[in-house]
């Protein structure tokens, strides 16, 4: 039995309880010409701010409440020692332009994290600057662009090939960096269709962007052949690291033949996702691309760390300062602590995924019958029930639904990634609920969820009657 908390919570600008943040009076002798006429921030006491957010938080699901098997999101446990590390004033209260002499600790963490990522990916150099996975993709593709620019080929090399099973960020990032996107279909096994790929690859091909295992959770063992096709064409091979948790310590993009990799620290390296962010999306490259990385990178000269700007073909900057150091520090803590045991996490994640896939295959169709890696995709089509309805039904049991309707190549898709942080008991419970979703009357399914804070929400109405801001406060009498 489960029941999420519900509070009929007002907007903060409706409280009118009187601000109580005490400060002494301040001299004001500035001209009217620069002064704003009025400012209407909420007028609320600290106690009410505290209560407001405590109540709201209880209306929010999270990893710290239970299983959260969103496919491709790797919602593993976020260890508290990493939060502790990120709370240390020695790291937290450092200005990004502080002298390098005074920030050796910070630079050491960054350097060591670069090296960790290089080893984990089988690449040669890394930048920590991108703010999120998609930002890493953009950075990687800008590196591709700059690479072909310096070779005088950019006018010709204006296409990026992407599989139809790819994450939506891949094509979006490619376009932002000024490329055209060419989509190649998957074959009947859910893998890259080599013939289709060969047909798509030509003189215009700048790069091929893929993730392996792909969004179906399947490892594409043609990868070396793919790399040969791409490299023989003078193109680059880009690794989307969203699914890295499957291969951590097992294989590397470097071994597979990739030239550029991005990481999602908030997935593979267990940093908390914060309701949508912040994340961090470092990028690693083979040595021939090092010169194109964003500046600065951190270098180590016999234990003295410094920011190195001397990459003459650098793409420059992709984020305001030095990247999401607060996130990097958490991920660094995670890697430092687990060390070579990290592969055990990958193994357990893969084991859990295969367990759920096999169990659920009794009730749901699982296309592309193969060994799964960290995640798998099932279709509810065979059950006559909508993935949407089942996803809402699941919520009623105090657990979060899988990613739904992705990847696009599977109808009524549910994409399930249990991660290593769940137990057999968690999975069995989840499987029971998914079985139950097929046995309850259709009507009950359609009415779910009923145990969550609110019931099913009118999403179409939200878009049609767009309300993106609270109403002005009602006057207090």
């Amino acid at each position, binding site marked *: 039995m489960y029941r999420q908390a519900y509070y009929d919570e007002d907007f*903060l*600008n409706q409280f009118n309880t009187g601000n109580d*943040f005490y400060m002494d009076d*301040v*001299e004001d002798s500035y001209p009217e010409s620069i*002064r704003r006429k009025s*400012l*209407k*921030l*909420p007028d609320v006491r600290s106690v009410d701010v*505290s209560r407001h*957010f405590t109540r*709201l938080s*209880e209306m929010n699901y999270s*990893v710290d409440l239970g299983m959260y098997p969103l496919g491709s999101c790797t919602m593993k446990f976020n260890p508290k*020692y990493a939060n*502790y590390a990120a709370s240390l004033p*020695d*790291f937290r*209260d450092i*200005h990004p*332009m502080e*002298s390098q*002499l*005074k920030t050796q*600790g910070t630079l*050491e963490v960054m350097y060591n994290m670069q090296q960790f990522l290089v*080893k984990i990916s089988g690449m040669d150099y890394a930048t920590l600057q991108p*703010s999120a*996975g*998609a*930002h890493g993709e953009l950075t990687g593709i800008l590196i591709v662009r700059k690479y072909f620019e310096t070779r005088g080929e950019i006018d010709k090399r204006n296409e990026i090939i992407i599989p139809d099973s790819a*994450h*939506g*960020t891949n094509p*979006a990032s490619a376009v*932002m960096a*000024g490329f055209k996107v060419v989509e190649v279909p998957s074959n009947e096994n859910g893998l890259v269709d080599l013939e289709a790929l060969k047909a798509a690859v030509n003189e215009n091909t700048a790069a091929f962007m893929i993730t392996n295992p792909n969004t179906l959770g399947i*490892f594409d063992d043609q990868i070396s052949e793919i790399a040969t096709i791409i490299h023989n064409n003078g193109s680059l091979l880009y690794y989307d690291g969203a699914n890295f948790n499957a291969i951590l310590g097992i294989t590397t993009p470097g071994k597979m033949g990739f030239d550029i990799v991005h990481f999602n620290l908030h997935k593979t390296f267990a940093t908390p996702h914060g*309701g*949508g*962010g912040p994340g961090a999306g470092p990028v690693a490259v083979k040595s021939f691309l090092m010169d194109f990385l964003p500046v600065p990178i951190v270098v180590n000269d016999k234990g003295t760390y410094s920011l190195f700007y001397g990459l003459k073909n650098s793409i420059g900057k*992709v984020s*305001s300062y030095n990247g*999401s*150091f607060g*996130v990097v520090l958490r991920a660094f803590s995670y890697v430092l602590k687990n060390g070579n045991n*990290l*592969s055990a996490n990958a*193994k357990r994640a893969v*084991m859990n995924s295969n367990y759920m896939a*096999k169990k659920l295959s009794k009730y749901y169709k699982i296309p592309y019958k193969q060994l799964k890696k960290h995640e798998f995709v099932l279709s509810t089509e065979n059950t006559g029930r909508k993935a949407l309805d089942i*996803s809402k039904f699941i919520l009623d049991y105090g657990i979060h639904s899988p990613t*739904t309707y992705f990847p696009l190549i599977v109808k009524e898709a549910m994409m399930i990634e249990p991660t290593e942080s769940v137990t057999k008991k968690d999975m069995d419970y989840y499987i029971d609920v998914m079985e139950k979703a097929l046995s309850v009357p259709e009507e009950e399914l359609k009415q779910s969820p009923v145990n969550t*804070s*609110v019931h099913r929400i*009118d999403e179409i*109405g*939200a878009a049609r009657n767009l309300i993106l*801001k609270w109403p002005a406060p009602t006057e207090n009498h």
Partner: protein
Amino acid sequence: MSETDEILDYLNVKSVDGLFSDIPDRLKVSLDLGKPMDEFSTIRAIEDTGRKNKAGNMNFLGNGIYDRFVPPLVDEIIGRNEFLTSYTPYQPEISQGILHSLFEYQSIISDLTEMDITNSSMYDGFTSLAEAVRMAYRINGKSEVLIPENIYKSQLSIIKNYTEGLNLKIITYGFGTDGLLDLEDLKSKVTSDTSAIIVENPNVFGLIDENAFHVSEIKKDSILITYYDPVSLGFIIPPGEYGTDIAVAEGQQLGIHMNYGGPLLGLFSFKKEYVHRSPGRLIGLSKDSEGKKAFVMTLQAREQHIRRSRAMSNICSNQALLAVASLAYLSIMGSEGLRKIALITMNKSRKLKNNMKSAGIKPVFDGINFSDNLFYFDRLEILESNNISGGIRLSSISEYNGYGNASFFSVTEKTGDENIEKLAKILGD
């Protein structure tokens, strides 16, 4: 029988390695990351590394990131497990907490800027500025963008990276000897091809730029993008009041620690007619099947996970948690609190300029500074020997041609008066 054994049994494999038979052996690797550590040793190692940082309390660094007071209540709120360890609210019925909070964030930033709509966050200030340029281009498809001549190099670099392939021409406009933007110069450069004009206020020189209030009068059909300082809006005229179409800023000052410059918070607001061209996530207010107030992500068709290559942006993860931090910060401070913090900042800048002047170090401009103050001072070795942080050279962060040997000293409400006096004394000696 252990859980693992039970599962492997069920899967008919002898060991977990059997689940990796699809990965060719020649691709297999073993890690070289060191032995696992216990939790205490991990923490001790990180604390020891932290102690190698030696930032002192004579801190006059700014230029976009500021050491402002973060109320412990803010840290506590964003430390709540339910916010911290949740994902993007794809299932809104079980995620009302973060949705409600982000909706309020959108609202409070809209109120602060007097803009119509604010999205639910971007990575940081500079990428927000670049996304604003892209958005302007999507709106009007025009080919030129006008930027201030003193723009930060980093801002410019990111704009260039973000507009690869758009064929946008970047044109700079100048500044007067008073340090304010040159309205005449700007006016002369606005044409029917102008897609957007970027204005910064306070500007890169740290001045509250009264000329910025008049740019809308000369902008013609272009999009006015204002890069503002959110704390300054506690006192200063907000972008919405002077004709801004897209207002962007760095939100770090609003309750977020400096963290060596990240994670940050991009504030992104705009006029409502442009909503369908805007990047990023939007949280909308709706109702549930029982008529209760309920929130959802809306207009998702603009986003990459639906529209893929035709999306408004590739952004997916954003800075939701920090958006909540800024909401909490602004609510705790209230209008009066933010006004006082803005005023204290301006007063401290004035005091700094006065003390420096008395010590023989000339401010480059006479106007009203917010946090950043530019002085004719280049003996940076004095700073190091006195363990003072500050003195960022204008020439190191901007291509601006002039005042080459001037450098910045920045203040916040935390800057001690005694430190200001000490600084002037040391530098004047």
